């Protein structure tokens, strides 16, 4: 990718982070930490990777994306808004009564959401089903699913991984937002999922380990994944929970807490400053 493209992605990621904070602040609840750690991945997926069209969100030939870690939807909603599935203003209604932006993704109410999710471990199974349907119908679409690292403690993740490996679902690419934190503490202290790369490899995945905040590495991994034949791919993205907002970074207490007005203003000031420096 050239430097102009990279700059545009960085600016877009800043807007996604601002959208996520805007949503969570107005909702007075929600999950900023994981939304921010996955913000660069959301941005790359919707601006560069996925073959999706906001004008035709149900196109049967489109690529699919399943947010298996559904609680990080404030970040996903911001990326969908940026892509044009709905207006950025909609983000302020997150979690409000009657809003289409539910606390966890609802495919029935929100254009661009391919699967309802939120109960951890379930999204990856649905993604496998979508990939299976693509294989059965000889379709060329690809299926992507984003999982949390803590989510990998769910047994269903490994049932699905076994299925994907066994069925050689090379149209499936999972991404693990490996920010190292879960609600009760560090993943490595609660119940370690390591060695995650070896586990996934042994389940039949081609594994790529990247810095999930580096667009060069994100692009490289997605491009390589598309060329892999005969097996599914997993991108383990090392990320920082709360990335982009100084006081939220690598701080587990921001997993599911909304900023107050003062904190919100500080977060937005920081993100605006980052955007301004990118635009300068």
């Amino acid at each position, binding site marked *: 990718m050239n430097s102009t493209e990279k700059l545009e992605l960085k600016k877009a990621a800043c807007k996604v982070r601002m959208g996520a904070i805007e949503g969570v602040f107005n909702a007075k609840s929600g999950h900023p930490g994981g939304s921010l750690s996955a913000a660069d991945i959301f941005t790359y997926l919707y601006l560069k990777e996925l073959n999706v069209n906001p004008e035709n969100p149900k196109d049967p030939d489109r690529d699919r994306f399943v947010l298996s870690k559904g609680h990080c939807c404030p970040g996903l909603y911001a990326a969908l808004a940026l892509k044009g599935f709905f207006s950025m203003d909609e983000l302020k209604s997150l979690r409000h009564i009657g809003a289409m932006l539910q606390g966890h993704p609802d495919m029935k109410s929100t254009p661009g959401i391919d*699967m309802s999710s939120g109960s951890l471990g379930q999204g*990856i199974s649905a993604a496998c*089903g979508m*990939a299976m349907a693509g294989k059965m119908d000889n379709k060329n679409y690809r299926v992507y699913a984003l999982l949390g690292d803590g989510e990998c403690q769910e047994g269903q993740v490994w049932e699905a991984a076994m*299925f994907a490996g066994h069925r050689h679902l090379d149209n499936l690419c999972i991404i693990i937002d490996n920010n190292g934190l879960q609600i009760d503490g560090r993943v490595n202290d609660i119940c370690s999922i390591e060695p995650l790369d070896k586990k996934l490899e042994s389940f039949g995945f081609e594994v790529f380990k990247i810095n999930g905040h580096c667009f060069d590495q994100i692009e490289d991994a997605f491009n390589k994944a598309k060329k892999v034949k005969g097996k599914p791919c997993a991108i383990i993205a090392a990320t920082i929970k709360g990335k982009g907002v100084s006081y939220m970074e690598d701080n587990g207490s921001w997993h599911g807490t909304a900023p107050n007005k003062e904190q919100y203003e500080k977060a937005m000031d920081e993100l605006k400053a980052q955007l301004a420096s990118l635009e300068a």
Partner: protein
Amino acid sequence: MADIIKKATRESFGEAVCELAKEHSEIVVLDADLAAATKTSIFKKQYPDRFIDCGIAESNMMGIAAGLATCGKVPFAASFAMFATGRAYEQVRNSIGYPHLNVKVVGSHAGISVGEDGATHQCCEDIALMRTIPDMVILNPADHYEMIEATKAAYNHKGPVYIRLGRLAIDSFNDPSNYKFELGKGITLHEGNDITVIATGLVVNEALKAVRAIESEGINARLINIHTIKPIDKDIIIKAAKETGKIITVEEHNIIGGLGEAVCAVTSEEYPVPVKRIGINDCYGHSGPAVELLKQFGLCEENIVKVIKEQLDK
């Protein structure tokens, strides 16, 4: 009257889904290593490319089915009732029910008529579990002919459906030449105004024998077959309550959460009458030959006759 066919509803289902699949290429069948038992093996043999064995992983199977449904497939996902609705309850609720996906959840080996395998596999809670999921349709056919029509109706209904299958071979009692399955509509199998028996699934035939047997004693009991437990046919229940004043329910399921309570919910809100529930009295089953177990748990003609008389004497 048509020939009596002695067949387990699981087998009738296996044949029916195969027949449907001829016309509807979007039908796919999933199983979790129990194809030989759930009888999805019939489909597997005929349509190997449309059959997905997920291995012993029912939770994942329900998610796979959900994903397939988002892409236009019509999945029938089968396992034992215990695992399809019990182990995978939350997957059925969140990945299929909440997004209202067009998945047919199929639970075989329901109830105590599983027999010798015993309590761990005798699921008497599936109807209760599935009733709590909004918009879930629940079908519990009573014989071979009804199962064939119910399978078609499940396909024609756009949205999640739970279909309950039995392991035990049972006699048919319906006549296919005049049988009509209407989703959500009960069927009056025997007229009478002294009392109403409302039954579902494999015990309907026992109830039919019971109401016929007591006719000679001058007792005219009405018998209603409820093949669709949800949405329940309120009208037929209210009418029976008004016209006969007493109701007995019969089901191969815990009396908590099943047909009996569904009927009570209708009568208590619309037209209160005494309702006696025959079923599994909030206990586990145990090993033994299916027919003997059914007798032991009171799910037989003799006990239904006895309860009818007791209720009429009250």
